[in-house]
């Protein structure tokens, strides 16, 4: 099997549809280890890449005013059981453009894989960017994933990012996203993860509402069981008049797992308004008993509730 076929198979296992990576009408990028196996540009979007000793440097530019009809598909993976993959990415979404990205990161055989993702993202004036990233790390728990992003959202821009790691083991996750939002811009960060065994989850989501009327939501949905641990630090700052922000974290804990949630709200302008809510606990008794009263056993009922929360 060629490397391309192997990575496509892993991509499919992580929930992606390989059809998009083969289509000439869909912008796409396929990276295995430190090699770019495929890249497809379409009108209005430019993808450039450079091979590094331990990864790839990627630049994605969406021209001003361009609105992509279909999401761009990105696939990053490592097929061997061991290795390091460093992805240095830069996204430039031009003023008034609109682009959705669907990324899958897959390490199906990970026994000792380190995946470092350092992204710099600029969402131009009145532009919109949506970035959905789904991970699959196999069943060994041997992946260490460190996604970092620095995001700037210009006036009237909109940025939404969703990170999902709910199938297979997490291994170690250390996510750190920081978004600076200008006037009337919007930022929404959502992280969903399900850890078990000895998985360790750390999520830091920071939204700085720096412009008048900027809005932000930092949201996390985490479930841990066995001896897994999680820590969520959701920060929203209201630094300008009429900025509105919210931090929303729900964690479900079972067995000997341990979860922490630290919502941080900071306001430096008296006309800004930032709120938070955080809840950690076991599965709700009434939800559990309702599903059991439909005939589900306890384990299945818990799974349905957790999967629902992580939807």
């Amino acid at each position, binding site marked *: 099997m060629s490397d391309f076929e192997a990575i496509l198979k892993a991509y499919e296992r992580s929930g992606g549809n390989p059809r998009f990576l083969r289509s000439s009408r869909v912008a796409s990028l396929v990276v295995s280890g430190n090699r770019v196996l495929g890249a497809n540009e379409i009108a209005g979007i430019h993808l450039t890449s450079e091979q590094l000793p331990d990864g790839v440097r990627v630049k994605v530019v969406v021209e001003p005013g361009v609105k992509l009809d279909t999401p761009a598909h990105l696939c990053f993976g490592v097929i061997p059981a061991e290795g390091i993959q460093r992805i240095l990415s830069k996204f430039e979404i031009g003023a008034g453009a609109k682009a959705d990205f669907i990324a899958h990161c897959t390490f199906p055989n990970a026994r000792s894989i380190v995946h470092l993702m350092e992204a710099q993202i600029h969402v131009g004036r009145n532009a919109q960017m949506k970035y959905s990233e789904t991970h699959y790390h196999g069943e060994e728990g041997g992946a260490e994933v460190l996604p970092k992003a620095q995001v700037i959202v210009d006036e009237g821009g909109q940025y939404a990012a969703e990170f999902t790691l709910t199938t297979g083991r997490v291994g170690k996750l250390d996510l750190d996203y920081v978004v600076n939002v200008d006037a009337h811009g919007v930022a929404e960060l959502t992280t969903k993860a399900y850890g078990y065994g000895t998985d360790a989850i750390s999520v830091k989501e920071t939204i700085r509402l720096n412009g008048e009327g900027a809005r932000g939501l930092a949201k996390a949905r985490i479930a841990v069981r066995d001896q897994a641990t999680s820590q969520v630090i959701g920060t929203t700052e209201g630094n300008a008049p009429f900025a509105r922000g919210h931090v929303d974290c729900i964690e479900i804990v079972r067995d000997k797992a341990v979860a922490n949630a630290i919502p941080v709200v900071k306001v430096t302008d008296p006309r800004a308004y930032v709120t938070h809510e955080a809840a950690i606990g076991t599965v709700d008794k009434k*939800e559990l008993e309702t599903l059991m009263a439909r*005939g589900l*056993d306890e384990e299945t009922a818990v799974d349905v*509730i957790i999967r*629902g929360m992580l939807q």
Partner: protein
Amino acid sequence: MQNGYLLRVENLHLQRQEKKILRGVTFEIAPWQVFALLGRNGSGKSSLAYTLMGCAGYTPSEGRILFNGQDITHLSITERARLGITLAWQEPARFEGLKVKDYLALGMKEPSREKMEAALNAVALSPLSYLERTVNDALSGGERKRIELAAVYAMRPRLAILDEPDSGIDVLSLDDIARLIRRLAAEGTAVLLITHRNEMVSVADVAALMCAGEILRIGEPQEMRDYYASRCQPCITVEAVEPPGGEYERL
């Protein structure tokens, strides 16, 4: 089945945190029968429902529950559900991320779109509008209540315990609930209807009055209705202790 009864409750006592909640509750429900349990708030009706379903913290201290001749007093909720008992909670749970169609399918033996639509139609909800919605706070209390009843209907249980299905439902929609209850019975489900609304009792075949953890009377629905309407006083709550002098008629 023993002596023609689907459910037989014998001398059921329940104590929680040293308070007597149920005191020697005894009654029977026949297959296809609608049995209304009428009583004011705090009389122990919901506690009885949870005890029959086997909810955590509601293990009886005395007495037994027979279902289809089998002693189910110490079975789990799941085991009771798999025998054909289910419960619609007075305040239905909210499920983040769970769609109505998936919620309905959970209790169905052979889920199908057709059956889900029939279940929603049975509670006067449009399948087109609701199947893809989520069973969470975006639905009103009344909508969640109907979806809970639809889930019970979709499950086709042998015994449906409906804990105040009429609460949170506007008066004009009470007929919908009454129709659903009769439909359940007509299609082979016995119903234990728990209510404090006098007008709902007329849907039943048999009715009982409950007060302070005891079943005081069992009889014709009209008779129980009249008795409840004319003689019922604010209920002595289940936490209350008997007054000096012992028993007295509370209704």
